[in-house]
């Protein structure tokens, strides 16, 4: 087994939060006595990530994704458990570690707003002690990949959200980290900018071999970038394995979409072939058990004959799979 870049064991983070009920009486009482409650943001998760992997870290809001990333990057001290990233204990925040990793958060800026990004890059060059030649080469590469030519000389506050995110990426990667934690890197961006950022991350991983752990609410990000996903919910690990297997394990059905010729829809009942989940103007969507899908498809083709205009067999949409994972009380599944 190769040396894992990220090695997490039974990692936990408990936050103590203050609670009070609404209303004047409760407010006055809270001045004297506060009710505190422990919230397990991360409740003992274990996983490893090998060098060069791009892993999707999935979970609904409040699942513990960002808290985990903050612990792995060194921002937060865990309540219990262990983690090593590149052999370092992250929360010790040794310089040698910080120089090899980056945490990029889609909704946060690390650049100085009032000055052009090019000047912030210079500051980062000195902070990370990047030699001049390496700095020029990295910046040229990032400028090329992210199409930054026109952006780096404008004050950051004059950039659009998408432009700023590209510049943030460059700032976060100017020291050529070998591990990148990306937290919602495409949040709030339009579709075309999302696609560009995805392409960039994939290309960056290919060129540098950097290990990437990525959270996103956009399944397209995950599908485009990650062969492996880790799913957590309420601080616990639900699934760790190939993305392709996630659908098979968590949603053991296929979707057959049947399109009928004009006029045929009204007289054709397809309920006998599977569970009809949608029927609209000659287009019927059926949900069938995964292992009977080929047989049902063949029967449909055979039985419908020339009433059939088109038929397709698909995996359920990834959003649907994930939704099933989160809404069902699944136990930990490891592929």
């Amino acid at each position, binding site marked *: 087994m190769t040396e894992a870049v990220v090695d997490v064991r039974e990692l936990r983070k408990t*936050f103590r939060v203050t609670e009070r009920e609404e209303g004047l009486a409760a407010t006055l009482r809270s001045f004297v006595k506060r009710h505190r409650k422990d919230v397990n943001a991360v409740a003992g998760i274990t996983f490893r990530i090998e060098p060069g992997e791009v892993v999707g870290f999935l979970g609904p809001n409040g699942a513990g994704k960002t808290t985990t990333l*903050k612990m792995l*990057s*060194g*921002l*937060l*001290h865990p309540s219990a458990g262990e983690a090593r990233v590149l052999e370092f204990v992250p929360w010790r*925040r040794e*310089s040698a570690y*910080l*120089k090899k990793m*980056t*945490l990029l*958060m889609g*909704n*946060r800026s*690390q650049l*100085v707003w*009032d*000055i052009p990004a090019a*000047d*912030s890059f*210079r*500051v*980062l*060059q*000195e*902070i*990370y*002690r990047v030699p001049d030649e390496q700095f020029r080469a990295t910046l040229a590469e990032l400028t090329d990949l992210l199409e930054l030519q026109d952006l780096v000389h404008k004050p950051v506050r004059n950039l659009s959200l998408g432009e700023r995110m590209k510049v943030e990426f460059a700032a976060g990667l100017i020291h050529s980290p070998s591990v990148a934690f990306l937290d919602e890197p495409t949040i709030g961006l339009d579709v075309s900018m999302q696609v560009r950022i995805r392409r960039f991350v994939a290309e960056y991983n290919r060129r540098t071999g950097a290990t990437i752990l990525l959270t996103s609410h956009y399944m397209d990000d995950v599908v485009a970038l990650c062969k492996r996903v880790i799913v957590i919910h309420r601080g616990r690990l639900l699934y760790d394995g190939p993305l392709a297997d996630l659908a098979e394990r968590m949603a053991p059905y296929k979707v057959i979409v049947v399109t009928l010729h004009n006029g045929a829809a009204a007289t054709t009942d397809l309920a006998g072939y599977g569970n009809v989940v949608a029927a609209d103007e000659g287009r019927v969507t059926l949900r069938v058990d995964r292992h009977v899908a080929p047989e049902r498809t063949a029967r449909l083709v055979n039985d419908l004959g020339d009433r059939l205009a088109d038929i397709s067999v698909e995996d359920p949409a990834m959003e649907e799979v994930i939704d099933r994972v989160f809404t069902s009380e699944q136990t930990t599944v490891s592929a």
Partner: protein
Amino acid sequence: MIRTYRALFVAQLQSASQYRVQSVLWMLLEVVRPVIFLAAWVAVANAQGGRVGTYDVRDFAAYYISLTFVLQIVFSWNAYDFEFEVRQGRLSPKLLRPLHPIHYAIVENVVWKLTTFIPLLICLVIVALTFDVRFRTTPAHLLLFVPSVALGAALSFLSGWVVATTAFWTTRVHAVSTLWDRGVFIFAGMIAPLALLPGFLQTLSLALPFGYMLGVPAEILRGGVDIQTALVLMGGQAIWVVIFYVAYQRVWRAGVRQYSAVGA
């Protein structure tokens, strides 16, 4: 480290240049308060035949001009900035870089002082001419003033950081820093020169750190204390710097463990 400081310095200077007017307005606000106290003491002195204790009108002018000058060198806004950074989560990117966040604060401080230095000097010259100032400063006083104001600045900066670092626990450090500022206001020599405080308050002001930030370097600059007294007071400054340096290191270490990276 010199290269890092140079880069931070250039970036901060560029940032500051966008807010020139704001900087000068803040500086004017800083000058106004001591000048009001100066005017009040001048009125009191004139009503009492020209003196209050050992101070005549021209001594008051020298004291408050020195105090304003020292205030400009010594004072730091970090507690306010720090609270904001912790609450907004803007501290997080800084914590994840291989450079202690205190260095950004040092540079911000220095740049702010530099950008407002010339307008401040102009204001002080006008005040000096208006009140016919008289300094009792000797070359030895000037020599001692340099380390004394440096110790005052270190003390103000480090104590400011200790206060600011409580934001890790409270997230709202404003109340704590306001309380601290009131301490500075009363005991640092702003309301009155330390020598004119009534007995109990004077003892208290010498036991607390505040006077060692402002009042002590200001008195040394105007030549208001003899050299031996100046050296004893500077010893007091050094002790407080050491105390706050140790406190800062401990509080920072504990605070960072406590940091919940709110909002980021």
